[in-house]
Structures are given as C-alpha cells and as structure tokens.
C-alpha cells in the first residue's frame, strides 16, 4: 500500500523524524483555517500518488490564510496525470538551504535492506543514477544486525552532505530506518530531505509503501487505506478478497495464481485481444469467490467476453464450476464466458458445467484455445 504524503509524514513524525508542521484540508475553507493555525507563510501541496506534482501546478505557496484558500481552490479537484486531487497538505513554509535524497528499501537481489543517499535531492533518483551515479551513496543493512551508527555516517560522508547538515542527518537516518522496520515498510523515500536556514534537517516530502502482508500486526493499516480512492470494481473485488486490477481492454480474465493470470493476459494479447483486467482468485478459491469474481468482471461495461482459466491445485475444479453456475443463475449475464479448467477435480467440474448449460457458456480444452475463443467472442465473431 502506497501512502499519501501527509500519511507518510505523520508516521515519520511519530517515529521522531522531523517533518514540517502541516494540516490536511479537503476544502479551501479548511486550507485557510489550516494556514491560520500554522501562522505565517505556507505551502499548499496536492495529495496525489504521482510524480511531477510541482510542474503540474499542484504545489503552490501562500503568504496568508486567504491566499491559502485561493490556491487550495485551484488545486483541489485538479487532475494530475489521471489522479484527481481530493486533498491538499498545508505546510508551514521554511527557508531551505540544501536538498538531499535518501531512502530505505528492500534489496531483493541481496535479500537485505538498502539505504541510499545523495546530496542531489529534489529530483528523481533515477535521474541522478543516470547523470551522476557517483553521487549516490549506498549501504546494505543486515536485517538481523539492523542499522548501526556507522551505516548512517557512511551514507552521509560518502554522499558528500554539507558539513552543517551532517550531525543531524546522521541522527535522522537511523530514525528513518527504525520507522522502515517498525512500520513494515517496503520503501521509505524522503526526497527532498532538506537543510533549513536554522540548520535543522527535515523530511520535506515522504513516499512510504507498506507491506500489506504485515497488516495483521498494524491495526492502523485499514484506516490508512481508507483514504485511497479506487474504482467501483476494485472496491468490490477488494471486499471479496480478490486481487483485481482494471486494465484498458475488453477481454475479462479470471484465473488462479498471479503467474498463470499474467500468462493468460500475455496469451490473450498474443491472440490479438486486449485484456480488460487482471483478476487472481488466489489459491484455494471456493464457489463463492468464483461467483464474486464473475460478478466484478461482468459489471464492467467494457468487457465483451470473459476467459476463466483455472489450473486446479488447492483450487478445486468442482468448486469453480459451482461458482460459475451460481453466478449465471444469480446474475443477468450477457457476456460470453469461456471456461478452461484443468487439474484437481477438473473432470468433475466439466461434468457439472455440462449438466447446467447456459447460452453464454463456452468451454475450451487448452489455454491457447480458450484465449482464441475469448478474443473472437470479444470481436463479435461467434465461434
């Protein structure tokens, strides 16, 4: 789960990382009152999860509460690269002497954690990596040993952080790492980490991604997630425990296991079709889950045909068939559905489907055949 800036900063503040004082606002009035409570100049920042907010006009200064209301008026409701601005963060403006970059993340290839720092902040790290790779300091942090003070010193000295910011930066980095671990984050990126006119080091922006698998030990994950806007289908899928991602095409896809679903998308594409979604019912899906999946997919008006591609392992073919039959009985479905079923109890499933014929139902014996059929059906060619 990717957090909004204001959410990430609030968590960092609680972990002892200095961040500017700020308030969230979803209306110009709230922005004005936030500015008043902060006193003096503020910056109004669009809360969207996409880069390049500044260039798009999503970050504006305001000298007083009235101005804050004015710029909030402009920013709230804006569309930034397809992301609608629903909230702004109103922050006390400060004097910035230098901007740095730092982040902590999981280094999959080393199976360990990685700290990254650069004296060149405020731009994308990929850009620095391209233009001046020598300006990026990296340090691996053993997950069992944790961060030792020397890791912080190494990052700060190797990155060439200004002498005036070193001491504070060396103190802030371990707090970021502690937050990374305590929050079960998969990424904490602070860009920029700034040196203020008063010689303080603070996080001016924060990108925090949390590990959804760790939700069981973080009661606050649900609340954080509630701030996220998702499509009706995605919300419905989420509620039913499905892993659903909406895409642009017209061939609806249901499968079990992320790898098989991705492969199904590829095969549909290779057959000349465009997948309408990614939907993984997961391992051990029962009839209910299958039925819900069909409901989610067929409620998307773009979908012209559906391919169900199940290879049973934990998932049982009979339960898959039961779910399909349930959905067809329960819902008014006018989208043709191609079912390809193999593995555990597949024969039984096929038999069940045969015994409950439905005009929208087609079957396929192989994955490739299923893809071809679904693509033809989406085109309107009745196979």
């Amino acid at each position, binding site marked *: 789960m990717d957090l909004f800036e204001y959410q990430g900063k609030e968590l960092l503040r609680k972990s002892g990382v200095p961040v500017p004082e700020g308030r969230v606002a979803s209306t110009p009035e709230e922005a004005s009152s936030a500015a008043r409570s902060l006193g003096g100049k503020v910056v109004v920042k669009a809360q969207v999860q996409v880069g390049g907010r500044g260039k798009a006009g999503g970050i504006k200064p305001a000298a007083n509460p009235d101005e804050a209301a004015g710029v909030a008026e402009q920013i709230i409701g804006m569309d930034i690269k397809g992301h609608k601005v629903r909230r702004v963060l109103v922050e006390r403006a400060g004097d910035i002497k230098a901007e740095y970059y730092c982040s902590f993340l999981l280094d*999959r290839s080393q199976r360990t954690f990685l700290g990254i720092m650069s004296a060149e902040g405020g731009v994308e790290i990929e850009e620095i990596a391209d233009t001046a790779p020598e300006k990026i300091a990296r340090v691996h942090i053993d997950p*069992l040993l944790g961060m030792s003070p020397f890791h912080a010193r190494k990052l700060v000295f190797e990155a060439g952080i200004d002498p005036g910011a070193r001491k504070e930066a060396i103190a802030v980095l371990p707090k970021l790492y502690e937050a990374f671990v305590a929050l079960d984050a998969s990424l904490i990126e602070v860009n920029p980490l700034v040196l203020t006119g008063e010689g303080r080091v603070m996080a001016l922006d924060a990108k925090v991604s949390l590990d*959804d698998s760790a939700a069981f030990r973080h009661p606050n994950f649900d609340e954080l997630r509630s701030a996220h806007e998702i499509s009706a289908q995605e919300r419905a899928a989420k509620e039913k425990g499905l892993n659903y991602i909406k895409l642009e095409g017209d061939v609806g896809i249901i499968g*079990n296991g992320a790898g*098989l679903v*991705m492969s199904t998308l*590829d095969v549909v594409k290779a057959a000349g079709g465009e997948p309408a979604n990614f939907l993984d019912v997961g*391992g051990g899906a029962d009839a209910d889950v299958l039925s819900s999946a069909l409901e989610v997919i067929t409620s998307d008006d773009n979908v012209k045909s559906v391919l169900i591609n199940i290879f049973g*392992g934990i998932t049982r073919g009979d339960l898959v068939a039961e779910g399909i039959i349930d959905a067809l009985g329960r819902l008014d479905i006018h989208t043709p559905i191609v079912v390809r079923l*193999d593995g555990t109890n597949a024969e039984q499933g096929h038999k069940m489907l045969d015994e409950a014929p439905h005009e929208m139902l087609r079957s396929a014996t192989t994955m490739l055949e299923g893809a071809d059929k679904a693509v033809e059906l989406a085109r309107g060619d009745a196979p």
Partner: protein
Amino acid sequence: MAILVGDDTRLVVQGLTGREGSFHGMRNKDYGTDLVAGVTPGKGSSEVEGVPVFDTVAEAVSATGANTSMVFVPPAVAADAILEAHDAGIEVIVAITEHIPALDMARTVTHLRRSSDGRATLIGPNCPGVISPGKANVGIIPGEICEPGSVGLVSRSGTLTYQIVHELTREGLGQSTCVGVGGDPIPGSDFIDILERFEADDGTELVVLVGEIGGDAEERASRYVGEHMTKPVVAYIAGFTAPPGKTMGHAGAIISGSAGTASAKKVAFEEAGIRVATNPTEVAGIVKETLG
C-alpha cells in the same frame, strides 16, 4: 535421481492438524511420500489418520527421523515455524504459506543462510512446493499431472507451474523434480540455488525455468546459466502484458523502473543463449526439440 525431495524424504508437516495442512499432507502421503509426523503445539500425543503429532519439531525429529518439513501454518506464525524447523535440524523446509511479511522473511532467510549450526534449505514461502515424480511430493503441486522423467523445472509461480508441467507431461516429457521457489520478494532459495542442484543431478538432462516480472532473479539466473551450466535451459516468462507500476498479485511481481520487465528478462535470457518460449504450450515444444 532427483533433487530436494525423493526416496529418502521423511516428511513432517507443521500444521498437520489444520484443514489445509491435513488435506495436502494426506495428499502427499497418498502420493507415496513418507509422511512420518505432524507438529502442532499443544496437540502432542495425538494423531491425524495414523500419523503421530508432536508439540515441537525437535520432538518429531528425534522420534521419527524426519528430515524434511512442510510449513502449512498461518502467515503470522510462519517465520517462527521455519526457524523452528531449522533449529531442529530439518534439511529441507518447504514453506507453502503465503503473505508472510517481507521483514519476517528478510530476518529468517538471513538467519538460515548464515547460521553455522543449521544446514537447512528453505523452499518458498508462498510456493507450491517440490515434487520428484514417482518418488515424493512435498507441497500442493497436483501429483497426477506429473510423470517421472529427466526435465527439471524451477518456477516462481504456482499454477503457471502446473500449466507447464501439464504441457510437458502431455508431450511425454517427464520430470526429474519440479520446484516452485515462490513469488515472494525474499525467497529462501532462488533460481540459482536450484539450477546448481539440477546441474549436479544425474537424473536431470534439461531445465525449464519459469520466470515472472519484478525483481532481477531471472537476470541473475541468466548470467549463472551462461557462466556455469552445461545442461540446456529453456525459459518462459509471464507478464509481457503487465502495465508498469501495477502489482500483479505477488509481492514480487512489481515492475520497478526499466529493470524487472518481462522484455528485459527475455533479452537477458537470450543473451545467455537460453531460448524463451512465448506461451506455456511452446515450452514443451522447445524442450522436445532440444532433447531431440
């Protein structure tokens, strides 16, 4: 021959008294795997269909000589179960459990790889397990789709593995061992660990590698194959159609920047002289062609 599991496997199932643990444990037993014990704390001295249950893995090992463990416990306690198996001297730990926090796995895998007193190989988590057809099945791979043979298979995916095994079997291409290493960001074993074993295994003539988008495990594997493998490798990668930046189910299947895409992985494989199939069916075709 085979790798990881086989005729010498003596299996203990951690979580045997659970619904899924007993279902799959018994399926493994029915397949012919030597299921010697279950472990559920507090249920020691009980039985599941004739298989004795112990309170701790250490007890199970000392009473039954178990050398392989299948972990089928909830994600919140799975890392602990893996550490317990390691501490008890289990040699091969197959962790089926998905949604284990990455932090838990980072700590657990680091400990397992470094610890001087253990020699455990961890497969998974979030994996379908390991099957050496005709010998032993530890995990949830449907045994009926496999046939004994000389193709080794290693995959980050679950059901996609079944699909490909199914295609191989249909073409008469039996398998030495099929290994699902799992799609998590921090797996206990990665492609290279398994490729090393296949390279050394007399019973394996060719290896099928099934990759996914995200991470650089495929890129590293391709370098390893180029530099160290004498046996032919055939690859398949899923996710060419995945839009950048979208999570596709597996925590591991995240595209980060330019690296980690299916195309980048395909290029890496081809540069290492590995043929890459465009769909699961084609895998079997290329394998057949390669083995001649």
